[in-house]
């Protein structure tokens, strides 16, 4: 029978609530935890109430007598409906838990927490029978309609049937779980005896109802429902005795037909509270129920006796596999119950709604629908089905895709949130601006880290400035617009040298300042109308332009302006930000124009700014610090993750500054928040940087990380120099040295790990000098293939260097044109040619004169001027010198590799740098003696192909006459010429070499000597170099004597310039021991 569940009414306070009908069925009476008994006429009515005590645990009503178990451990009687107290029926040592009348109303049974069950005569309360035997509080009692037996359930797990007269236990079933108290019991186990025939006793056991037969006390059947999973609390019989209603924990209400054992009704409490009281109205058509929250509900429409209509073929409407789920009735095929439907209580949503949580199958199995379908009248059924079906359709489709995330508001980086009364308005490397905004006053405090910049300032914030920025020159403040006043920008230009140290400007109506920043001599404001306005620090308005989106924050440094703004709306917590980097120098340009700003997932921007050296960087809310990598095409590289050093999840670091040299991230650790409080004064901590490369725990990873970090953090040198700033050369060279050292270490590691391919790759990153070291390392460790490859690499590098130097040289030529003329005269008397003559010969002309240049001077090489020998000499020298300068600090080793390479390159027929030219010369030297002209020509043609071949010829010619004349001057010059390291060494060891191989020609001796010298350690060479240096300073260069002197043939190359400390001449790089 479809029944209607009415909305529940609030009846009592939370707690156990009981309900019963009065004899007429007109009133519903409830009692609850508030100690009241309420009398309802129907659910919509306002009840009358009687207070029976502090709490009312149970009630029973019959014959105008209301019996309640109250908290004063008594069972009281009140008249009904007046509610006048009518005496105390019985007492217990603790409260009674359940009271019930017998069917005639002559007796009352009460069970209590003191394990007793008492049966008291209504008429004479002194007549009591006490039934002892329970070992735990009594949960419920019920009278046999025939007054013979009393059934009780208790927390000791047993259900006992007593013989009342004998006060003995007839039978006891251990059905329930044992607990120690009523409140802990999983089920109240309110049992009920079938009225009328009294054949069956219904006992709720867990989620089923056991039916026991009277007399034999056999468990004859069980009523259950597959959908019932929770324990049943209470069962009541219908007055006719045919139906059994049960309420469960979880709020399910079921009604079974006892004969057919079918569940004919299922209902659920609208909120799912536990049903603890159930009463069937005497008419049999209503069930009142109460829950543990004190509410009262009604089920209407029950009680129509089922007719025996054959089951309609509803199966066709549903899947067959529903059977398993459906009740037995359906599977039987004959489900009389449902037929009743023809009575078209097509109650729709009320009872359908509770079913929606059920599975569709369950729904179809559920009787409500089923019943509707079973009805023979199809239209009714149909419409019922439709009506039933309609609410079951899912409601309007709900959008379940990604939701847009709120774009973050504009903020000043280095400030704490604006809603605080005491906040930091700006904390950067210059100082701190604090804002105080409580009820009394609104003030701004400016404090400088370096008190030399300016003394601390205290201002009253009459305009209500909310944005601030601080630089070495000025303090910039801005306030939002109000109804009367426009948004203002105020600048306290304290470094101004005139008397006016402050200016203010009104923004146009409708524009609010959203972000501001200061740079070197300028200020910028981003406004709410997507404009960016530039001002000079003195107050002159400059350019302005439109921003592509609402600004998030801005930062300025020197001539650079960095803006972060919203490019679009992000979804799912992501922010879509764009960044613009502008250069506001004389030549204004946009370096990054609106590219996306990469943030971590679902994070927002928390800080944006520049490092102290001018590299843009930013921090997101995940603690990742990213810096602009100019050398990698203006990409953003993460350099630090502050969360790595955070001990707990709620600790954050509030960034105040980033420095590249020394590498420091200055931030304030905040416990439990993202920003620090104003007081106590926060202490700045310094965090190191670490690139998140892979496997930084291994040695390789560590070195790689150090290398790339060094490269990244020294990018600013090249940037500064390109922008025309002075660069700290020492720092730059220091960093380069560091990087090369790291590369060398990585090289050594890779060698050790037999990763020669990697070695070559690493060598590509090295500078020329370090490649030589690498070659040496490789050859010493017998990795000849590697050494071979490295030498090829070195050659390439050398040629590259040469090209670069030629370019430089061209520039310098133009620069110092006048200078060479001057030099020329000085060098008139130069006698011999120097090694670089190789180069000059190629170009050309006579190179008799030994040009003398002081180290480090510029000379030009210009092909048009090559007529002059000095020029030629100079040219080669100058090229060499240029080279020297180009390489920074010349060192002994730097000369060597070049020479080596050039020599090798000569054999390979490649061009080489001037040094190489010198080397070439040296190689020529031994050759020169016997075959002076030809080798020269050869080398000339192979080496410098800069100038035309006519020069070659000239050199050839000049070479010849050179041979004789230099001999005498050679002597002189030789003495005068400073000795190179090799020369010194050769002198020392010549004897040993000749001793070993006496039949060597001079040339070979030299070769041998060179080979050995090369194999010497670098220190020894340096030693020689220093010796040579000393000599050089005081002597004129003598460059050609060695070539032509017989005995004095010294196969070394002496160069002008500092780098002339070259000691070894390597004929064959690949053969260390040649």
């Amino acid at each position, binding site marked *: 029978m479809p029944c209607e569940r009415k909305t529940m009414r609030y009846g009592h306070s939370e707690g156990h609530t009981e309900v019963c009908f009065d004899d007429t069925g007109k009133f519903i009476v409830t009692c609850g935890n508030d100690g009241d008994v309420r009398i309802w006429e129907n659910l919509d009515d306002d009840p009358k109430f009687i207070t029976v005590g502090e709490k009312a645990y149970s009630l029973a009503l019959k014959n105008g007598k209301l019996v309640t178990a109250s908290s004063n451990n008594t069972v009281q009687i009140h008249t009904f409906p007046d509610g006048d107290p009518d005496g105390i029926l019985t007492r217990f040592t603790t409260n009674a838990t359940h009271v019930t009348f017998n069917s005639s109303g002559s007796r009352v049974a009460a069970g209590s927490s003191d394990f007793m069950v008492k049966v008291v005569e209504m008429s004479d309360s002194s007549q009591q029978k006490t039934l002892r035997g329970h070992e735990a509080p009594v949960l419920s009692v019920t009278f046999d309609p025939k007054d013979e037996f009393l059934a009780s359930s208790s927390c000791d797990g047993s259900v006992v049937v007593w013989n009342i007269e004998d006060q003995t236990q007839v039978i006891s079933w251990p059905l329930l779980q044992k607990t120690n108290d009523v409140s802990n019991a999983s089920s109240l186990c309110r049992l009920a005896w079938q009225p009328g025939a009294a054949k069956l006793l219904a006992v709720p056991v867990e989620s089923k109802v056991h039916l026991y037969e009277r007399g034999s006390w056999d468990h004859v059947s069980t009523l259950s429902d597959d959908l019932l999973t929770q324990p049943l609390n209470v069962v009541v019989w219908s007055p006719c005795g045919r139906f059994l209603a049960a309420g469960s924990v979880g709020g399910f209400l079921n009604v079974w037909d006892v004969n057919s054992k079918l569940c004919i009704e299922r209902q659920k409490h609208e909120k799912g509270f536990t049903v603890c009281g159930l009463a069937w109205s005497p008419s049999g058509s209503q069930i009142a129920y109460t829950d543990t929250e004190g509410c009262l509900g009604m089920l209407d429409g029950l009680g129509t006796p089922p007719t025996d209509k054959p089951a309609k073929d509803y199966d066709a409407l549903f899947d067959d596999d529903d059977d398993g789920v459906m009740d037995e009735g359906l599977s039987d095929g004959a489900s009389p119950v449902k037929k009743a439907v023809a009575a078209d209580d097509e109650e729709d949503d009320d009872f359908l709604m509770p079913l929606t949580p059920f599975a569709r199958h369950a729904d179809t199995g559920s009787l409500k629908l089923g019943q509707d379908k079973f009805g023979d009248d199809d239209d009714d059924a149909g419409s019922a089905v439709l009506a039933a079906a309609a609410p079951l359709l899912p409601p309007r489709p709900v959008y379940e895709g990604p939701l847009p995330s709120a774009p973050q508001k504009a903020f000043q980086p280095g400030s704490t949130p604006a809603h605080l009364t005491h906040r930091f308005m700006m904390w950067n490397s210059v100082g701190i601006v604090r804002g105080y905004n409580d009820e009394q006053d609104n003030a701004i405090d400016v404090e400088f880290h*370096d008190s030399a910049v300016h003394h601390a300032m205290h201002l009253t914030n009459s305009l209500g400035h909310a944005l601030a920025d601080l630089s070495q020159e000025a303090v910039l403040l801005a306030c939002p617009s109000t109804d009367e006043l426009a948004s203002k920008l105020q600048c306290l230009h304290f470094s101004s040298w005139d008397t006016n140290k402050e200016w203010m400007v009104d923004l146009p109506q409708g524009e609010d300042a959203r972000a501001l920043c200061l740079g070197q001599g300028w200020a910028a404001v981003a406004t709410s109308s997507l404009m960016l306005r530039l001002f000079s620090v003195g107050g002159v308005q400059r350019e302005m332009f439109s921003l592509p989106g609402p600004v998030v924050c801005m930062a300025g440094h020197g001539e650079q302006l960095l803006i972060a703004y919203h490019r679009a709306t992000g979804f799912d917590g992501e922010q879509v930000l764009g960044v613009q980097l502008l250069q506001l120098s004389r030549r204004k340009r946009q370096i990054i124009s609106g590219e996306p700003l990469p943030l971590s997932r679902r994070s927002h921007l928390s800080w944006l700014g520049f490092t102290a050296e001018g590299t843009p960087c930013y921090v997101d809310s995940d603690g990742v610090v990213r810096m602009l990598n100019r050398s990698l095409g203006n990409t953003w590289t993460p350099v630090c993750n502050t969360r790595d050093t955070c001990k707990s999840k709620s600790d954050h670091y509030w960034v105040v500054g980033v420095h590249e040299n020394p590498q420091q991230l200055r931030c304030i650790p905040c416990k439990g928040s993202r920003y620090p409080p104003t007081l106590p004064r926060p202490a*700045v901590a310094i965090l190191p940087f670490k690139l998140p490369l892979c496997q930084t725990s291994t040695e390789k990873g560590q070195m790689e990380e150090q290398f790339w970090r060094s490269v990244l953090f020294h990018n600013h040198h090249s940037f500064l120099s390109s922008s025309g700033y002075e660069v700290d050369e020492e720092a730059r060279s220091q960093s380069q040295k560091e990087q090369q050292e790291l590369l060398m270490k990585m090289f050594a590691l890779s060698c050790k790990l037999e990763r020669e391919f990697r070695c070559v790759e690493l060598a590509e990153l090295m500078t020329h000098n370090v490649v030589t070291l690498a070659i040496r390392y490789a050859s010493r460790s017998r990795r000849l293939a590697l050494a071979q490859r490295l030498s090829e690499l070195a050659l390439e590098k050398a040629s590259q260097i040469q090209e670069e130097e030629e370019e430089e040289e061209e520039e310098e030529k133009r620069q110092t044109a006048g200078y060479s003329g001057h030099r020329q005269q000085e060098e008139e008397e130069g006698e011999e040619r120097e090694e670089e003559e190789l180069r000059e010969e190629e170009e050309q002309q006579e190179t008799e004169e030994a040009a003398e240049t002081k180290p480090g001077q510029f000379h030009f090489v210009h092909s048009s001027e090559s007529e002059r020998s000095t020029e030629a000499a100079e040219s080669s020298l100058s090229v060499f010198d240029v080279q020297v300068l180009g390489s920074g600090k010349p060192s002994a080793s730097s000369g060597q590799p070049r020479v080596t390479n050039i020599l090798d390159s000569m054999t390979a027929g490649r061009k080489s740098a001037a040094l190489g030219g010198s080397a070439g010369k040296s190689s020529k030297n031994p050759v020169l003696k016997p075959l002076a002209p030809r080798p020269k020509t050869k080398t000339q043609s192979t080496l410098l192909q800069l100038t035309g071949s006519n020069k070659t010829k000239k050199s050839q010619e000049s070479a010849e006459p050179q041979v004789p004349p230099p001999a005498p001057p050679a002597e002189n010059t030789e003495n005068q010429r400073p000795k190179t390291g090799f020369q010194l060494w050769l002198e020392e060891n010549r004897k040993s070499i000749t001793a070993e191989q006496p039949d060597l020609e001079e040339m070979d001796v030299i070769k041998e000597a060179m080979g050995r010298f090369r194999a010497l350690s670098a220190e020894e060479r340096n030693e020689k170099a220093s010796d040579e240096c000393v000599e050089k300073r005081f002597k004129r260069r003598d460059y050609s004597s060695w070539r032509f002197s017989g005995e004095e043939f010294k196969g070394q190359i002496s160069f002008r310039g500092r780098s002339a400390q070259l000691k070894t001449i390597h004929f064959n790089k690949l053969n260390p021991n040649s």
Partner: protein
Amino acid sequence: MDPSEVEFLAEKEMVKIIPNFSLDKIYLIGGDLGPFNPGLPVDVPVWLALNLKQRQKCRVIPPEWMDVEKLEEMRELERKEEAFTPVPSPYYMELTKLLLNHASDNIPKADEIRTLVKDIWDTRIAKLRLSADSFISQQEAHAKLDNLTLMEINTIRAFFLDSLNCMYKLRSNLQPGSATGQFTDF
């Protein structure tokens, strides 16, 4: 040794300050200091910190142990233990006095700290007196006291040594062989 000498030695301890000026690294005989960057903490000896503080060129950051809770714990521990407990710093008394006299505005709860340190000092001096007393009364030959600071030793040194010397003199005079009355002067 004079207490002022002990204080002088204590001034060599390092303490963190935040300067408000800029200075490159300075190379002193005792070691290198700096560089000083405004707003960044730097470790300097106490004598320099106090000097800078008096010239209003820095802010002193109290050492880690100069904290009310930590000192309270130390005080409880000191009271519980019979022997001397390890001290937060070998010059805790001097540092407290110096820093609280000159830089109390940079140290939170300065008065409480003063009281707590004084309590610790009193407890330790009391233990020291007791120990000296038992040493003499039981005529021990050796004693070993751990975790004493120079200042504490200094308070007892003069008296203790003199009294021991006197007692030696007296004792040696009591010996029969010393009836000649010859004793060396200390």
